[in-house]
């Protein structure tokens, strides 16, 4: 009985060890392939002509052929679009992080009547599909007279970004030790100074998470600019690049080159900040 059960457990041990580790590795490798494939295809396609894309979609192109990229450069307001995207995304993120951190700090740290209501109010925003409200939003923007301005986009993006930001930041701020603020209070720091000099440097990892979490959808957003922006010189990148998507023919090579150029900034920002991002993700777990 004893021997039998032991060998049984042994067998299972080997299987479990091999099976578990191997399976995880396999899943991760497959996942990497799935994640990287579209990016690689985009990269390859950016250097191919339309004909080449359809002939050999997965073939490795001649990387010296930059015709698509020069075409974007010459035939669209690429720089203009890029700048618009930077302006809209940048100001949205700045406003989201400023307001979100301040709101989260208040909700997490001060005991006041209605604190939990304020938090619930923000969280309720998570459940709201903003796109369903597009017609009322359009009317609202028209009445406010900010249709066809970047402000209309920024306002919407801030509203979209605040719930998750407040949620992430509140959770994070709550994990910071209270004694730090008490120490700063004993040192004679005013409440704004405590937030600015003590708390802000400490919540930076969470702000990076919230930032990345918001940058990607805002940068890539196609829907709201399409509705609110008609002037060519105000168009954002994803919207501007639709020039190459004709009703009858689409110049895929150029489109992919545009996609490559428009996604590059976000990818670079992510790589630069990824260390902080990962630190922030695990900070709560270690404490």
């Amino acid at each position, binding site marked *: 009985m004893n021997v039998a059960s032991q060998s049984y457990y042994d067998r299972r041990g080997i299987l479990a060890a091999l099976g578990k580790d191997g399976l995880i590795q396999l899943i991760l490798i497959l996942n990497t392939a799935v994640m990287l494939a579209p990016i690689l295809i985009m990269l390859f396609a950016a250097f191919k002509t339309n004909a080449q894309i359809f002939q050999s979609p997965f073939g490795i192109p001649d990387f010296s052929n930059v015709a698509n990229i020069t075409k974007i450069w010459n035939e669209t307001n690429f720089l203009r679009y890029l700048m618009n995207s930077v302006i809209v995304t940048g100001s949205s993120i700045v406003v989201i992080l400023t307001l979100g951190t301040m709101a989260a700090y208040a909700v997490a740290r001060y005991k006041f009547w209605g604190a939990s209501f304020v938090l619930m109010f923000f969280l309720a925003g998570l459940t709201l599909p903003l796109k369903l409200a597009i017609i009322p939003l359009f009317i609202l923007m028209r009445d406010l007279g900010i249709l066809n301005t970047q402000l209309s986009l920024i306002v919407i993006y801030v509203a979209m970004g605040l719930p998750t930001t407040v949620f992430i930041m509140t959770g994070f701020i709550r994990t910071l*030790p209270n*004694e*730090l603020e*008490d*120490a*700063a*209070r*004993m*040192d*004679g*720091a005013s409440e704004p*100074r405590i937030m600015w*000099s*003590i708390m802000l*440097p*400490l919540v930076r990892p969470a702000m990076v998470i919230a930032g990345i979490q918001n940058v990607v959808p805002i940068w890539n957003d196609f829907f709201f600019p399409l509705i609110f922006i008609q002037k060519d010189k105000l168009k954002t990148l994803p919207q501007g690049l639709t020039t190459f998507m004709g009703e009858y023919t689409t110049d895929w090579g150029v489109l992919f080159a545009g996609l490559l150029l428009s996604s590059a900034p976000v990818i670079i920002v992510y790589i630069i900040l990824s260390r902080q991002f990962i630190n922030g993700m695990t900070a709560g777990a270690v404490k």
Partner: protein
Amino acid sequence: MARMTLSGIKKSFKSVDVLHGIDLEISDREFVVFVGPSGCGKSTLLRLIAGLDTISSGEFHLDERRMNDIAPSRRGIAMVFQSYALYPHMDVYENMAFGARLMGLEKDEVEKRIDEASKMLRLDPLLKRKPRELSGGQRQRVAIGRALVRKPKVLLLDEPLSNLDAALRSDVRLEIARLHREIGGTTIYVTHDQVEAMTLADRIVVMNNGKVEQFGSPRELYERPANTFVATFIGSPRMSLLDVERNGNHLALPGSGAVSVSRLPHSDERNLVIGVRPDAMTVSTDESTDGFRGNVVYTEYLGENTYVYVRLGDGTLVGIRSSASVDLPPDTPVVITVASEEIHYFSRATRERLAA
């Protein structure tokens, strides 16, 4: 000067009363330790003095000035926190400079004070380090340094040794005692460790359930505990309490016989509690001795001496310090003699000390 007067201090959180009327007079340059079990309100009292929590009712004066509504930083009080609460993103120098700058001091003065404090605490080689690069003892010194830079009249320390390992603890304890003498201010120190309290304090405040049980010098607390709580809290191993009945000059313990004593309380209460420290009793196997009868439960050999634990007739377990040569197997019937002049008498009803 730093004379503190607390009168009728009460604190409640919502409907829970944490402190029920604390009255204390603390003199200038005194080293006072608040000691008590967890949840007794000692840390709350410290936070009220610091100004981090508001006083629900009562008055707190520092040098005749009412402090109740004065901001923490304007009280002339500095505090060292249990977790040290160093600013993690600032180096040691910045940690100390932060408060000094907020006081509106000139740049030279800030530098001078940091220089002074870091010399006193041997922090000079660490000034450019971040808190995470310091050991526990070093962090502790930085936390103290940060408090000293503000030149406070009163220094508050909240369980400063609890995060240090045992070897470091006695070093830091000596250090704190030395600092107190050098700075010459008033120090209030919170701990749950009675050894720290006894070794450091000029006077100790023993707290329990949000009340002050006794306020006095370590000697007073040890030799004349005001009630059974203080009697058992101070001293290690703890004092044994026995419920006895007084009969003339005899004290009778149910199931263990009676002993005659030469010294009795002035009060004529019949039901008494007597407190006896481990070194005021002797254990003997001679059945004819006058004393309480019991059985050995176990012995602890400590090299220098042996502690014998004896179960008495009414079920009480008492600890007795004996010479190291004593070796009694469990269940040995023994007789315990008590030195009459070292008995502490308490009323059974009030648990308060009875003068003898």
